[in-house]
């Protein structure tokens, strides 16, 4: 189980994470954050493997990832 915490208030909607996700699981919210950006949303939590490539490309430390250990 992967737990992805999105610090949406830090997101500037640059889209680098979306372009990076190998499974195309990320999209843009239709709600703006307090900065006026449309932040990232995770579409399908179940499919996320927690590879963290999105987080590595994020310039704003929006994404935090934890994995359930067996």
């Amino acid at each position, binding site marked *: 189980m*992967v*737990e992805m915490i999105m610090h949406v*208030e*830090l997101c*500037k*909607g*640059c*889209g*680098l994470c979306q*372009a*990076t996700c190998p499974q195309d699981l990320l999209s843009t919210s239709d709600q703006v954050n307090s900065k006026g*950006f449309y932040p990232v949303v995770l579409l399908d939590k179940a499919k996320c493997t*927690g590879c*963290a*490539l999105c*987080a*590595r*490309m*994020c*310039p*704003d*430390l929006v*994404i*935090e*990832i*934890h*994995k*359930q*250990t067996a």
Partner: protein
Amino acid sequence: MKTVFSRPQALTNKPLHYCPGCGHGIIHRLVAEVIDELGIREKTIGTCPVGCAVVANEYFNVDMQQAAHGRSPAVATGIKRVLPDRVVFTYQGDGDLASIGMTEVVHAAARGELITTIFVNNAIYGMTGGQMAPTSLLGQFTTTTPYGRKKELQGSPIRVAEMLATLEGAVYIARMSVHNATHVMRTKRAIKRAFETQLEGKGYSLVEILSTCPTNWGLSPVEATKWLADNMIPYYPLGEIKVAAAVEGIN
């Protein structure tokens, strides 16, 4: 729960002011991750450039000094000489390092100063609004090359990493890029090797990092990563440009 990815200790909680998609955020985080992994946060001192990263002192959770434009390697020299057991790094952009501060970086490298330079090359002046940098590509449009950079007028872009690699005192010189996740991870390894070079007292180390400036390039962040790959990498080849024999054992 095992944490796969979270904010490094060596960054403060302050939200970054950089434009959407700017590479500075990624590079700040990589430097901070390396500082955390090496366990050197409490003995690291960094310097900020003049340019977009001028307020990096607010972002790095290590002691920081703001240097005058281009003088970071000299400021870092002053710090390192009086505190030789600390880890000192400079964080500089292409205007700061390759234009106004070229003298300082060349001589710090020549002296084999035991400092590490993180050199962010995005081929443009960001903070002042998109003027030509010494690393702007031929043909590149900037606000001071509105007809494109021309070799006969502005000369050719400077390959800083290769130039500094000719100096004896520079023992680890790499050029990396943050245009995709694979290269981000490679960049981090290079930064770590550069810091380890300093920790082992081998000499001067520098990692040039190709980065994007979507705002001043007039591209979306994703388009900017593609522009970097298509235009910058052919002129600025990636890899470890110089690994002196003394550094070979460090990985």
